[in-house]
């Protein structure tokens, strides 16, 4: 089995969790990493800057139709749903799902439907249940699933909900998750590295 995309969902406590995760990834990490973090809709590019300091990978908010290529950490922009198509992103302003836009479930479901068993899903700390149904979809499509160990999470609600929905998910610390996703087999994808973002 070889993989093509990693999607990560988090909410409350997400910033430090994300920092730890991307700090654990090597500079030649071979998969595009897509991050959906709940935040206020007026929030600006702050998150991008706060993460960029921790990785040689290129961190940027997604613009519509940006190609999905390795070497990048793609951040779902505030107040849009982020949909994954085969090879590129699409944004949507459809209604919030369970009060969230971006919704982790929406991104995970679209990644599972577009990439099937080539997708990897990661649920980190958070104070609601978003992401669990999407993680189940990734699992049902044959993808690889990880959940942050609830006792290590700033807010265990989201990891607990994900484990309940996907009992087979690998439950690990963030450092272990980073280590494992950094060593999954990568499916070669055409297209230049880092061409997707500014």
């Amino acid at each position, binding site marked *: 089995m070889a993989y093509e995309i990693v999607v990560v969902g988090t909410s409350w406590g997400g910033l430090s969790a994300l920092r730890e995760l991307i700090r654990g990834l090597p500079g030649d990490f071979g998969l595009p990493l897509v991050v959906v973090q709940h935040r206020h809709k007026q929030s600006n590019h702050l998150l991008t800057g706060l993460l960029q300091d921790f990785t040689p990978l290129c961190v940027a908010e997604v613009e*519509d139709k940006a190609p999905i290529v390795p070497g990048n950490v793609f951040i779902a922009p505030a107040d849009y749903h982020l949909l994954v198509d*085969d090879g590129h992103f699409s944004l949507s*302003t459809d209604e919030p799902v369970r009060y969230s836009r971006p919704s982790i479930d929406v991104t995970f479901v679209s990644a599972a439907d577009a990439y099937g068993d080539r997708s990897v899903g990661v649920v980190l700390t958070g104070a609601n249940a978003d992401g669990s149904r999407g993680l189940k979809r990734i699992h049902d499509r044959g993808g690889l699933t990880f959940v942050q160990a609830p006792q290590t999470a700033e807010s265990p609600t989201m990891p607990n909900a994900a484990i309940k929905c996907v009992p087979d998910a690998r439950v690990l610390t963030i450092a272990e998750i980073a280590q494992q996703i950094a060593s999954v087999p990568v499916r070669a994808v055409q297209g230049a590295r880092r061409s997707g973002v*500014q």
Partner: protein
Amino acid sequence: MAVPLKPNRSLNGPPVSYDSELERVEIELLLEGVFRHYGFDFRSYAYASIRRRLWKRIEAEGLSSISELQALVLHDTSAMERLLLDLSVSVTAMFRDPGFYVAFREIVVPLLRTYPFIRIWHAGCSTGEEVYSTAILLEEEGLLDRTRIYATDINDAVLQQARAGIFPLNRMQEYTENYIRAGGKKSFSEYYTAMYDGALFSPSLTRSVVFSQHNLVTDRSFSEFNVIFCRNVLIYFDRQLQNRVHALFYESLVMFGILALGSKESLRFSQYEPCYEKLHPREKLYRKAR
């Protein structure tokens, strides 16, 4: 239509047992059928989002496959109307992205003052929230009386809503905050009258507005404009269709005319990027330069 949702069906996607290749075939057939029978062309819409919207409709109609939805909408006009609403309505807000309106006031308004008469096109205006936002801004800048705003959408039902100028009262707190952040000069409540659960906006705001049906996919340019707003509409199109619409916008702008896109839309993936210059580092305000 009260159909109990099965828990695994509420994700606006197919059951996992559904064959993805077959799903794509069915979606293409459905969109082809809708185009040939009704003339609405959704064939070049972004796949991931149209797929999600189709499954939402399938769920709401209590069906279980794309082909069932195809049969229903081809034989039942009212089902087609419901689907048309799902596919064509874009959800927006008054003064969405306040920073955009600040930039518009600071950069675009001074340019507009140099024109004796201003023509603006709101392409894909949906229920009109951004049209009213622009009208309010131009009114406050003293420009509304020398402006004509053409507000168009593919869907006549949403245009009727836009024309009526009634928006949900429970959104007014959010809109007021947006308006203040957008650099509004008055008290937002001066622009509307609360009635029951609606806020009726002053009809004088639309004295310069023409609402009219126009299909970005199939219709041609109909005038020359100083400004074209098309925010968060093109995200629903695939890249090829985006390029076609950009050609339409390019033709429809006067030289040095302004193109305003949504904050996460970009000319970067279109072949028209070299024809425009950026007016702001972050907000998607472009000026036709060649």
